[in-house]
């Protein structure tokens, strides 16, 4: 290990300065991916810059505009917030599915994005919630849609020295709900073989007026699937429509076979999960808790 420096700046400006030297400088949020990768020899940073003492990275605000979530806010802070769980149940579930209770004390939605795993649970849920990513760099700030953040397995749109500061989830329209499901062989502690996020808006008569469907672990990045959403919009979410959304998701998937599952399996099950997640989102609108 060539790690020779650790710093924990207390302002964003200091952090950007510390990270400016190139890829050997790595930002640290919860560390539940980075420290494992260092341990397994997959990454070899020289300088780790801990972002958890920077207010913007650890702030959480929920108001009429929606949720603004610092990129390093740990999962446990989000998932134990009942108001967030009520408004964004699918996103909350997705974040809560990452790792163990112990990992929840550290992992973050921002970190999940930046790790850029195709199987990241948060990402489909962020995408269906139309989340935007606020990025800061020495050259200024910018925003990117969640679906455009990740560019491939392990890669994302951040330039060297840039920091993902926060995520913003707009307040959902009335009669809107989301859901996220994943397939893992055990009940916990696994990486998703398949993930599916759905957000739906229904009118008063139960007709779907808006939908977003995103799928995970079936392509190099999480995919927004407009075709699956189109299969739902304008319907009453009858069984056929749900199935059609599933078929559209299976059709959009470009999975690989690896140690966690086969491409055939992923393609098939992603359709099942989209169908089931859509049914859950619908029931959340019809029977709000």
């Amino acid at each position, binding site marked *: *290990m*060539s*790690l*020779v*420096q*650790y710093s*924990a700046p207390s302002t964003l400006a200091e952090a950007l300065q510390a990270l400016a030297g190139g890829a050997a400088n790595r930002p*640290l949020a*919860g*560390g*539940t991916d980075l*420290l*494992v990768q*260092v*341990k*397994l020899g997959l990454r070899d940073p*020289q300088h*780790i810059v*801990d972002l*958890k003492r920077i207010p913007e990275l650890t702030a959480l605000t929920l108001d009429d505009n929606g949720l603004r979530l610092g990129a390093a806010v*740990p999962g*446990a802070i989000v998932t*134990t917030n009942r108001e967030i769980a009520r408004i964004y149940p699918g996103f909350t579930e997705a974040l809560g599915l990452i*790792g*163990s*209770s*112990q*990992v*929840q*004390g*550290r992992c973050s939605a921002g970190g999940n994005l930046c790790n850029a795993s195709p199987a990241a649970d948060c990402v489909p849920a962020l995408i269906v919630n139309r989340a935007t990513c606020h990025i800061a760099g020495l050259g200024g700030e910018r925003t990117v849609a969640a679906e455009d953040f990740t560019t491939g397995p392990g890669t994302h749109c951040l330039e060297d020295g840039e920091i993902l500061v926060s995520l913003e989830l707009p307040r959902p329209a009335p009669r809107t709900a989301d859901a996220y499901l994943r397939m893992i062989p055990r*009940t*916990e*502690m696994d990486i998703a073989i398949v993930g599916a996020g759905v957000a739906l808006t229904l009118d008063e008569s139960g007709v779907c007026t808006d939908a977003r469907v995103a799928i995970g672990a079936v392509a190099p990045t999480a995919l927004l699937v407009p075709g699956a959403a189109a299969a739902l919009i304008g319907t009453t979410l009858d069984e056929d429509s749900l199935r059609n959304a599933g078929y559209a998701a299976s059709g959009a998937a470009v999975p690989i076979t690896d140690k966690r599952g086969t491409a055939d399996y992923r393609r098939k099950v992603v359709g099942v999960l989209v169908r089931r997640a859509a049914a859950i989102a619908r029931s959340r609108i019809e029977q709000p808790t």
Partner: protein
Amino acid sequence: MMQVRKIHVSTTVNGEPREFLCEPGQVLSDALRNNLEMTGTKEGCTTGDCGACSVLLDDALVCSCLVLAAEAEGRRVATIEGVAQDGRLHPIQQQLLEHAGLQCGICTPGVVVAAKALLEENPDPSEEEVRFWLAGNLCRCTGYDKIILAVLAAASEIRGA
């Protein structure tokens, strides 16, 4: 080889001020065990998958193998060594003994720390809630049955007390 400067860390462990020097890449479980000689915190994987190294960091349950030791600066760490107080076992510890909830015992400190965090948040968990909360605490000996019973019994004991 680049010369590695050690980092001086001032922290609080189980309510007591502690200081140590660590390497930048050293994780908290290693520092607790080898710098502070608190070996109750166990290391089963060092990748956050087994939970044997569970501690609280500023009241958050974490795997101390996934925390850099340097991150403990100015923060509060609570370990297994601080669970029994005044020569008395915590109800979770006592119920694990009564229920034979340990065989080899290597996972036990992590189970105790994690279960205590659960009961402080949720004093009346269901069996399912205990099982999901402890999903990150691998035990290869018991099949979990007696651990779950012990935690439920401890919850009941604490509520009754």
